[in-house]
């Protein structure tokens, strides 16, 4: 791994002051450190944000669950408050990686990285999340821009993610048999007025499947999306799953999610 300077920031202000075009924020480091070891990313400065107390913790109000950016996956999966308010969010956290990754990886890190097959971005889209940064509030629908790309600007730090509590919801994924990342993951959330069907792993970036949302808003039953033929032209295709297989998996996982609601 190439040389860099390690800094531990006391607060968001200091963290963003230290940021430059050749720096990265370090939370759990579950993606940042392996990418740096492989030479896929190099930074002059790593700014550790784990010790900023304000960035950790879970708060539940009547309508929403707010999770601090540096909150670890294990904290979300074990939280009684999250289990009660949005059980599907706690089970999503429980299914990320392995226990060692969950002991270390954070929700903010996962979202800022926006890996095309990460689990958390689908929760943000399905649960109409608001991303709170040190500068502004961003709606999830405008936050995820493309493969590993977000609306975050240089030095902008995610402080918390606010999820809207749905009436019902479920997250189902078809994991890679070795690494357990989502080959396809579908987060279905039924809100008062409409239904969101957030899909991860299928395309270069998480998205809300409009066709399925519409069908399920009309009739919230897996039969209303049964056999739906999704357009696979923009879907990922690799040694693990062809684009057509992914398109079929999206429907299968969405049906499973609706049935589990």
């Amino acid at each position, binding site marked *: *791994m*190439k*040389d*860099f*300077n*390690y800094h*531990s920031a006391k607060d968001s202000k200091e963290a963003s002051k230290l940021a430059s075009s050749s720096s990265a924020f*370090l939370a759990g*480091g*579950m993606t940042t*450190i*392996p990418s740096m*070891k*492989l030479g896929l990313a190099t930074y002059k400065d*790593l700014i*550790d944000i*784990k010790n900023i107390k304000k960035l950790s913790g879970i708060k539940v109000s009547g309508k929403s669950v707010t999770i601090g950016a540096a909150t670890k996956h*294990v904290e979300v999966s074990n939280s009684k408050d999250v289990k009660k308010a949005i059980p599907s969010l706690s089970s999503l956290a429980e299914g990320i*990686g*392995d*226990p*060692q*990754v969950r*002991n*270390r990886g954070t929700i903010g890190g996962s979202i800022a990285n926006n890996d095309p097959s990460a689990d958390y971005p689908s929760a943000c889209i399905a649960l109409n999340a608001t991303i709170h940064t040190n500068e502004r509030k961003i709606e999830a629908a405008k936050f995820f821009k493309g493969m590993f790309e977000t609306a975050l600007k240089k030095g902008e730090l995610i402080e918390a993610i606010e999820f809207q509590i749905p009436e019902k919801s479920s997250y189902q994924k078809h994991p890679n048999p*070795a*690494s*357990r990342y989502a080959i396809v993951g579908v987060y279905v959330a039924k809100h008062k007025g409409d239904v969101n069907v957030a899909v991860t792993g299928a395309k270069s970036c998480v998205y809300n499947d409009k066709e399925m949302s519409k069908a399920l808003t009309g009739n919230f039953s897996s039969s209303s999306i049964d056999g739906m033929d999704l357009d696979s032209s923009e879907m990922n295709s690799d040694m693990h799953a062809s684009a057509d297989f992914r398109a079929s998996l999206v429907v299968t996982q969405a049906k499973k999610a609706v049935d589990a609601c």
Partner: protein
Amino acid sequence: MFKSYWVKILIKGEIMGKISLEVNGRKVEKEASDNTLLSTFLREHLQLTGTHIGCDTSQCGACVVHVDGNSLKSCTALAADVNGSKVTTIEGLETNGKMHPMQEAFKKLHGLQCGFCTPGMVMSAVDLLQKNKKPSDTEIRDWLEGNICRCTGYQNIVSAVKEAATKM
């Protein structure tokens, strides 16, 4: 020559940092460059070579140690990142030369063949029993998701963890 010597020290001064840890109950303090991984720090700076490096990409789990009571993959954490923590490695499990019940169980039930994955496997399993005293077979298998063994086929590892659960 005198000048260039000092320049080097100054440059080094910028990228080196002091790492203070409590490792297996012993306080240690060493200078290490900021890009030193915890696994490197343990193996090369402290000569604690019981922690193994298998894949070096956080898949195999041979490098699992405990930091402040929780298991983590030491090849995917910076030494600077865990500064000030309490670290337990496989060398820290024995008491007065007597093996830990988990080590005993792995030995008794042949939970290892070549032994390369064993330090990480044992450290993960100990963390499981700290959190779940009587895990089911499924819970043991789920927990050991991040530890890969290419010899045993896992059956004897699961048996060993169950046996240790009766002794801990």
